[in-house]
């Protein structure tokens, strides 16, 4: 696959980028105390960490990657080559996604062993949730990059999605503790269905609604990227 050539170059750049390394590797460790302080242990802790990895290592890192490559005119160059548009985006996203998947497995194993979490009863929902989450947050990162002029600006432009997902998706405050009206709105956030599917993998719970919400987000994200993604800097 030709996109791998771009992915390999991106991986080299990732290792050479301290900010991206910090966000990916140290960031998740910083939320562990937060999650433990709200009594998340065992399965909720694993799920919370996986959600955090999706938000930071996939979404936030990719907003900065897409913006950096656009402003460096790398995307413009790639577009005069043989790669198709989706291949370019997949190639640029590859290392962040691979690192994020590695982290999720690692956290699940560590927390799982330390706190004695059972092996997921329905692992395929776990796989669906993780795969859907990666796709949704890659698409959202591409959409956010449209509103982001510089890499530094990503700290601001990524905030709405990050805050909404990290605070409103039941990671820190379980949706069941909230009024039903509020909870039903928060279930429509892009991270909520992912976490619900992960939960379904371990503890059971609804799967149809989260799958539909996730599919709608993927559809909307794909449409928005095709329509609005910017391949070269604004002049």
């Amino acid at each position, binding site marked *: 696959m030709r996109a791998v*050539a*771009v992915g390999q*170059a991106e991986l080299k750049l990732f290792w050479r*980028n301290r900010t991206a390394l910090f966000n990916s590797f140290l960031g998740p460790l910083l939320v562990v105390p937060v999650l433990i302080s709200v009594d998340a242990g065992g399965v909720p802790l694993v799920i919370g960490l996986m959600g955090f990895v999706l938000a930071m290592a996939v979404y936030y890192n990719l907003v900065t990657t897409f913006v950096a490559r656009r402003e460096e005119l790398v995307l*413009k160059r790639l*577009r*005069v*080559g*043989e790669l198709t548009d989706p291949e370019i985006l997949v190639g640029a996203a590859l290392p962040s996604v691979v690192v994020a998947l590695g982290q999720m497995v690692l956290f699940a194993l560590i927390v799982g062993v330390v706190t004695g979490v059972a092996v997921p009863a329905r692992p395929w929902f776990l796989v669906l949730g993780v795969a859907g989450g990666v796709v949704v947050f890659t698409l959202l990162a591409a959409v956010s990059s449209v509103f982001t002029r510089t890499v530094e600006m990503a700290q601001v432009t990524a905030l709405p999605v990050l805050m909404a997902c990290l605070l409103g998706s039941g990671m820190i405050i379980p949706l069941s503790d909230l009024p039903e009206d509020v909870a039903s709105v928060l279930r429509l956030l892009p991270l909520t269905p992912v976490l619900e599917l992960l939960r379904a993998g371990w503890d059971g719970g609804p799967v149809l609604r989260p799958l539909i919400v996730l599919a709608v987000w993927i559809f909307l994200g794909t449409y928005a990227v095709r329509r609005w993604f910017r391949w070269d800097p604004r002049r």
Partner: protein
Amino acid sequence: MTVIEVRGLTRRYSGGFEAVRGVSFDVERGEMFALLGTNGAGKTSTVEVVEGLSRPAAGTVSVLGHDPFRERSAVRPRVGVMLQEGGFPPDLTVTEATKMWAGTLTSPRPVDEALSLVDLTHRASVRVKQLSGGERRRLDLALALLGRPEVLFLDEPTTGLDPESRRNTWELIRSLLREGVTVLLTTHYLEEAQTLADRLAIMHRGRIVAQGTVSEVVDAYPSRISFVPPAGVALPVVASEDGDGRMTVRTNNLQETLHELLAWAHANSVELSGLDARSASLEEAFLAIAEEAA
């Protein structure tokens, strides 16, 4: 065989500005066609549509028999593009950037070969951000050549190059033309077009205002003879004064007019100091066209 065919090409930007207004030209196999023009004339806007980066607002473009925008996958493996401004991730080395590009191509040259074509072998392990502007330009050219293209788009390929690298680049382009590669060039450097191009077009405000071989374009403009005659002498030819007493004669028959002038000067023992006679050059044609069209 016509490799590039552009008919009535118009390009409009989202603000409504028409950068290109009904441009038409053909480029034959193995030929170099140059697009010249002042800044903002619409050269890059034209080339970007021919490269398939965007869709024309009106008109048609065909490259190797295909629409470069809609049939991108049929065209791209056979063309090489050097953008006016293309980027590399600054933290990759020259070799890494070239390898990445090679990995996206159907049948790339070896990386070492591409770098040696543009004399960058000695900079192979240097990070892109440490390259000079001219070296970056040459890396750009190396990537454009990496896929052994049949058609090459060069948008100001020698901007920022020192004179020696510019000569080397010209030599490289000439050898590609000899191998049958078709080249569409845009440049500010008229000398570059005059030396390399088989045919050219001069653009002004989105339109082509002159088109043909170098001599066809240049021959439409008069040759010039200039000199400083002694004060108060009546000249045998029509001349205009440039200031400082220097007179300029414009003529379509340089040899005849010059002969007439020199015979007169000899017979009357008139000294024409600072005598300078020259055929029209592309530069003169270009300046005259830009002035006329303004």
